[in-house]
């Protein structure tokens, strides 16, 4: 996006703190550091120093109790948790960035298209009905019944929304917004209805799920979200142009040669898939989608060529660091991830809204 000459000068005069390349490089570095910390720190006190021992034991096929424990912690607990946490952070941040581009509003959130409320509805239905009506189904899926249901719920709500609003051939952003709010309200009402019919134990499970957590991280879950990570990685580069153009306005984007309806459909579906998968494996984790893209724009400008990769990298970093706090602050107990994220994110969000330094009107 940049002509060779004006990069450095432009960065400073445009009120920018860093050039795009610098930001992406720093974000990638931060992610590496966060990943390293994530896998080396935990309540058991096991560090990466044990890794050579563990690898040797795997190679030789001989395990003693100590190395078995270290292997369990490093390779079966922390490593999948690291990968899942990075995915959740990247997916939520990138989805937030896309929603903000599409709605042309820095405060837009993936929840607006009904994904989170649909996922929550499906989750509570699974928790509440899993012992009754849907018993056989939940037994068939075992511990994956909940994530699978949450994902289906999130994507279904969004699909219904897109089909409803896009029927006339035009996917109007304002209609999408209002319909998303309506669908969200409906999901919330149904959720309330089911939670009324649930017993105390189920309610507690649901409340805990809604607070968000990576504690159920496992390799099967990592494999389950891998296709979504690939989907997002493949779709994103093609959306950069469309998202930049959409910031000018839909008519302008069309004038620049962007197939606006197609772009919007892809954005909505990619967002639904990303957020649906993230919510399915980690529950409801807020603020990543709003805070991270905002920070990127503040530092390096709103060009999606930097906002999208930067959001992915920094979002992953934030979630990993928050999860580290969640695991260590009250050890051996664990704080819900969503709570830590809210404690970090809410003050930043408040500052954003009050200062409105996001370049609004």
């Amino acid at each position, binding site marked *: 996006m940049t002509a*060779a000459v004006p990069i450095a000068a432009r960065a400073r005069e*445009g009120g920018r703190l860093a050039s795009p390349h610098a930001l992406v490089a720093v974000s990638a570095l931060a992610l590496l550091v966060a990943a390293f910390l994530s896998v080396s720190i935990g309540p058991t006190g096991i560090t990466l120093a044990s890794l050579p021992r563990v690898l040797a034991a795997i190679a030789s096929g001989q395990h003693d109790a100590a190395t078995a424990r270290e292997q369990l912690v490093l390779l079966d607990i922390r490593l999948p948790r690291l990968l899942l946490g990075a995915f959740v952070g990247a997916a939520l941040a990138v989805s937030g960035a896309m929603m903000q581009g599409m709605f042309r509003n820095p405060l837009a959130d993936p929840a607006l298209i009904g994904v989170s409320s649909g996922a929550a509805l499906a989750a509570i239905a699974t928790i509440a009905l899993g012992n009754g009506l849907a018993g056989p189904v939940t037994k068939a899926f075992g511990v994956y019944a909940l994530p699978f249901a949450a994902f289906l719920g999130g994507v279904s709500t969004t699909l219904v929304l897109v089909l409803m609003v896009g029927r006339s051939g035009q996917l109007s952003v304002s209609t999408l917004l209002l319909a998303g709010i309506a669908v969200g309200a409906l999901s919330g009402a149904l959720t309330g209805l089911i939670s009324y019919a649930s017993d105390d134990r189920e309610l507690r499970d649901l409340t805990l799920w809604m607070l968000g957590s990576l504690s159920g991280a496992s390799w099967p879950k990592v494999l389950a979200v891998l296709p979504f990570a690939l989907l997002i990685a493949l779709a994103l580069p093609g959306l950069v142009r469309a998202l*930049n153009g959409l*910031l*000018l306005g839909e*008519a*302008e984007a069309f004038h620049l040669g962007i197939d606006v309806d197609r772009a919007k459909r892809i954005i909505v579906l990619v967002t639904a898939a990303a957020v649906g998968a993230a919510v399915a494996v980690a529950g409801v984790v807020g603020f990543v989608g709003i805070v991270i893209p905002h920070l990127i724009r503040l530092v390096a400008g709103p060009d999606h060529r930097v906002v999208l990769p930067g959001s992915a990298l920094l979002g992953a970093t934030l979630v990993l660091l928050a999860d580290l706090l969640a695991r260590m602050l009250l050890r051996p107990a664990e704080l819900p991830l969503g709570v830590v994220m809210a404690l970090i994110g809410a003050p930043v969000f408040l500052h954003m809204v009050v200062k409105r330094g996001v370049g609004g009107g």
Partner: protein
Amino acid sequence: MLEARHLTYTTGSSTLLRAVDVGVRPGRILVLIGPNGAGKSTLLRLLSGDLKPTQGQVLLDGRPLGAFAPSELARRRAVVPQASALSFPFTVLEVTMLGVTVPGFGLSDAEAGKAALDALASLDMTDLKDRSYLHLSGGERQRVHIARALCQLAMPAWRSGQTRCFLLDEPTASLDLAHQTQVLAALRRQADAGHAVLAVLHDLNLAAALADDIVLLARSEVVAAGSAQEVLRDDLLSSAYGCPVRTNQTPQGDRPFVLPPAVFATHVARPARSLANGGGAHVLAN
């Protein structure tokens, strides 16, 4: 050539355009004038492909607009809107370079940057290139979008037989006198380069100075079309605007009147025209 054939556009119960025929030819500037609500912006949006006509067709070089993919169309025409919804802190240079993001241009970053800088230079905006768009005045923002469109038009490889169109909706609305002249001169250069230019203008004097062809729209219909002399007549204008309009008259007494400098700028009007031929009419309205 970009033409509208028997164009009608209705929404709900109101007819915004009725049986409009308009043609924008390569190398010529067509100006749309008319009172508010006459349908000028609607016509522009139909010509740019934003809207689909209820009846009639819009053809670009003989092909209906609907037959073009958005990216293909973007390589053939650029549009400058009346207002922009941009509320994110792009720099001026970045907004200009958005004109280069049309699929199929296949430009390197260096070439894109140079094209954008050229466009900004032609509008005398080089020193603003790193300013945040949100810190600009209305007039400056207008010029940025014009620069963006100029950039878009400068990009594609030239192929003969393919008309390139430049559509502008009130490009001088927020501009001061000097910048008005600049922008209109830029439009003239575009026409000289072989593009088909259509501009909606409010100021009838600027219209008279700039236009090769003028179309007067009133009450959703074309009331008159032709050269400035043919269209800017008392009777036509008075009936269209609904108030007494007198052309080529100066006010009584010693009250001064000011015509925009663009009216006198030689590089705005078509070079072949000269004052001796009666080219250059000016209009005063009560």
